[in-house]
């Protein structure tokens, strides 16, 4: 195991981590503000990926594809909120879980009807195809580096919007006391729809960036959704800072586990045993990590304090 390989895998972990963060931020924002648990968040990730692929093919331009994909996911998110989810804010979490479970079935099947069940091929733009030199003897794909950059910039923008702008102030106020904010003359329903739409757009952003790396197929959202749950449980629900830290921990732990656990186990136990135990343990690693965090801090690493 050379240093260059370790470094590359660390970057891959970071790249996976920022994608998890984009998902977790939207989910945790919606939960923190509306007390609403949205299982269909993974569907919005999928919708983002599909819309971007379709729009890129239609317009022939990657940038336009991304813009249309993002706008489309935002609109889909808002429509879903207004049509189906709005009535569920006052219900308990069980009803929310079940209704959004229904939404997942609907979206997965709808996508399968429109684009078919087979995985779609998505490619990044030509100007992101190359590699960059990190230091001597180590190169890293430009596309993945761009994802890391976009993710970190989004995190900063999000932090700025929530803590430093009027919209952010309204969002935080709405989270602590809905009735009072409404009494002060703010259209809280509209605010909720906007927040939900933004959460959807963040998921869509993660999805359309994931397209060229992972498969674009029905059900792609649920795989990442459950990992995002692990992130949120580790980070502390409702907290954007927790989502960022949790996402990077989970991203790096998962990637390093998949890359190095098998050879590492091979030095401890017999290679054939490590051959089957390595991947099994690697796929369980983040869940064991979650259990360990819960054993010490049941509220997660950064319990929410209204922001």
């Amino acid at each position, binding site marked *: 195991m050379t240093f260059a390989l370790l470094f590359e895998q660390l970057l891959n972990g970071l790249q996976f981590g920022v994608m998890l963060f984009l998902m977790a931020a939207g989910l945790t924002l919606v939960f923190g503000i509306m007390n609403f648990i949205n299982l269909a968040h993974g569907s919005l990730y999928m919708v983002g990926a599909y819309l971007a692929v379709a729009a890129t093919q239609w317009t022939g331009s990657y940038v336009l594809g991304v813009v249309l994909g993002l706008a489309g996911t935002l609109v889909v998110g808002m429509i879903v909120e207004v049509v189906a989810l709005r009535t569920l804010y006052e219900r308990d979490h069980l009803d929310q879980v079940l*209704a959004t*479970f229904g939404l997942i079935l609907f979206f997965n099947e709808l996508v399968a009807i429109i684009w078919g069940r087979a995985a779609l091929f998505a490619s990044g733009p030509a100007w992101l195809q190359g590699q960059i030199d990190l230091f001597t003897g180590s190169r890293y794909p430009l596309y993945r580096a761009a994802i890391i950059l976009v993710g970190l910039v989004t995190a900063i923008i999000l932090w700025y919007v929530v803590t430093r702008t009027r919209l952010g102030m309204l969002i935080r106020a709405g989270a602590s006391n809905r009735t009072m904010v409404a009494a002060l003359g703010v259209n809280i329903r509209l605010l909720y729809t906007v927040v939900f739409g933004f959460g959807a757009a963040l998921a869509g952003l993660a999805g359309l960036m994931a397209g060229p790396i992972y498969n674009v197929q029905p059900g792609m959202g649920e795989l990442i959704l459950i990992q995002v749950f692990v992130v949120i449980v580790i980070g502390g629900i409702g907290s954007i800072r927790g989502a960022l830290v949790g996402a990077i921990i989970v991203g790096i732990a998962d990637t390093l586990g998949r890359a190095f656990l098998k050879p590492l186990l091979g030095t401890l136990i017999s290679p054939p045993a490590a051959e*089957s135990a390595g991947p099994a343990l690697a796929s*369980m690693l983040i869940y064991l990590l979650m259990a360990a965090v819960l054993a010490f801090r049941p509220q997660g690493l950064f319990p929410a304090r209204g922001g």
Partner: protein
Amino acid sequence: MLVLLALPPLVIALGQPFYLDLVRRIMILAIAAVSLNLILGYGGLVSFGHAAYLGIGAYAVGILGFYGVTNGWIQWAVAITASALVALAIGAVSIRTSGIYFIMITLAFTQMLYYLGISIAEFGGDDGMRLNAKSQFAGLVDLNDPVAFYYVVLLLMLLAVFLTYKIVKSRFGMVLRATKSNEARSRAIGFSPYPYRLAAFVIAGAMCGLAGALYANHTNYITPGLMSWQQSGDIMFMVILGGMASTAGPVLGAFALLLVEDLLSGWTQHWQVILGPLLILSVIFFRRGLAGVLYKPDA
């Protein structure tokens, strides 16, 4: 009830053994739903990972069969014990939390087991494993006979409903329901919720493990898909659709959901695009479940 008893002779007379198979599958999943209802409906624990025990029960039968142990008593006892132990481990961690955390954690642990099932190549991995012989109950009953197997499942389903009813009416069940309706008060009168919830969680896991053992015998084939989150969601829906807080409700829910599924899937390949919105509508407008419509809930 009477319909279920009379079904096998009827469908055989009509030459439609397919329905025997369908109803048997529904009843097996109804056992899983009844067990989930114990913790969900009466304990207020929204477990989104109940399919885990279905999978463990099924794999217990499959793995023992793989090593040549086909004795049904041993297989089923191991299925129940293994599910109970896993439920104990998962419950011990997750019951420390509540609300939304509990939902996510139970889901995450089940997903972990799902990946474990996928990654162990020895037992089929992603493709699943074949069950070479059904569980053997020498001299007592032959599960290869579809009608006999049907009655075994029916009997066990009724037992599961009866057992849940007894548990709910017992002192233990009373405490469990008290912790659901008001945790602070039940603490104040001296009942710490944790041990009661954990015990209920383990009982529910064990019961669902039996359903898993039955399911393995039903399909003769075990895949990690049994532990998928969709399966957990399905079981949960059966409970809600049938009506929580009535012991027989989940059975109604299982029949309603799976019959609708069967109907839609016979109609169009894309049945989920219809089922999804149906489920959403049932959550929004149909709050007391089928049992609430048919009779007054007994809790």
